[in-house]
């Protein structure tokens, strides 16, 4: 416990970084980094993740605000979708004129 509080005092909070590589695309998770606040997180992200023209927009979220699904529940979460093939829209014949599907 004492170790934990030492780390808390000497480390800045962790932030998750999302970068949009070009207009029209989604922000994608690029990685994480340390920063004292949101403003510094954006600037650090600029220096760490967009050095080679990777981005046009940056989102930052403090890691503690990310809530994740529990891997232990993977079976009940995802397996039931396995045999529900009718949930895929694959039973339609698409006209040739229809593109981008």
């Amino acid at each position, binding site marked *: 416990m004492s170790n934990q509080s030492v780390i808390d005092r000497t480390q800045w909070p962790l932030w998750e970084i999302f970068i949009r590589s070009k207009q029209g695309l989604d922000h994608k998770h690029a990685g994480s980094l*340390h*920063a*004292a606040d949101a403003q*510094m997180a954006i*600037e*650090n992200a600029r*220096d760490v993740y967009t050095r080679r023209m990777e981005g046009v927009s940056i989102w930052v979220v403090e890691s503690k605000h990310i809530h994740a699904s529990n891997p232990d529940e993977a079976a009940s979460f995802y397996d039931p979708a396995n045999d529900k093939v009718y949930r895929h829209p694959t039973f339609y014949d698409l006209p040739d004129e229809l593109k981008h599907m």
Partner: protein
Amino acid sequence: MSEPTILFQYVLHLADDVLILGHRNSEWTGHGPILEQDIAISNIALDLIGQARNFYQYAAQLSNERGISATEDSLAYLRDGWDFRNCLLVEQTNGDWAKTILRQFFFSAHQIDLYEQLAKGGDATLAAIGAKAYKEAIYHLRWSSEWVIRLGDGTEESHARMVRALDELWKFTGELHTPAPYELWASGSGTGPDLPILRLKWEERVKNIFDEAGLTYPATQWMQTGGKEGRHTEQLGYILAEMQFLQRAYPECEW
């Protein structure tokens, strides 16, 4: 002095400022206070050295046109201290993080107006370099301003370090806007900015950030000058000794 000679000196001055500051910042690489800031200061170092290369290439071209053989490397690595025309501010030691970022802040607050004016100036090459480097300088100023505020308005310790850095560096800031002969020529010929006008903008920028940072803008006092005409502090010698060692010991060595 003939016009090509004085333009050559002006370009060298622009190059030396950013080479020496870039080299100083690069000394932090691997030693930054935290990984992300290590990358940030190294990026700034690379930006500055990139600007220096552009200026040195132009200076070498001007030199060759006058029949004096030079390359960007010979200008950077084979001149002695008294030939360097950088201002004294940029050669000062890194000290702690407070001193490094305050040095960068003072210089960037000058550089953005300098480059903006160069970009509008009469020399096409300098205008192109100025336009490109201007965007970099804006970011350097933003980054260093935020650090000045963060430390100045931070803890007792960080504030005390900013005050100490200010004590150490303030006397070198006056030289930024004290024109050397080649800068008088540059403003007279429409190549570069009029430094006394830039000084007013610089003071306003610095005052604004100091207000936010809770730092006292020092009353005008005696300023140290001479670097732009080759009279340097002892610090430059140490930089050149390290930076030039390889080319001096192994001429034209490549790796």
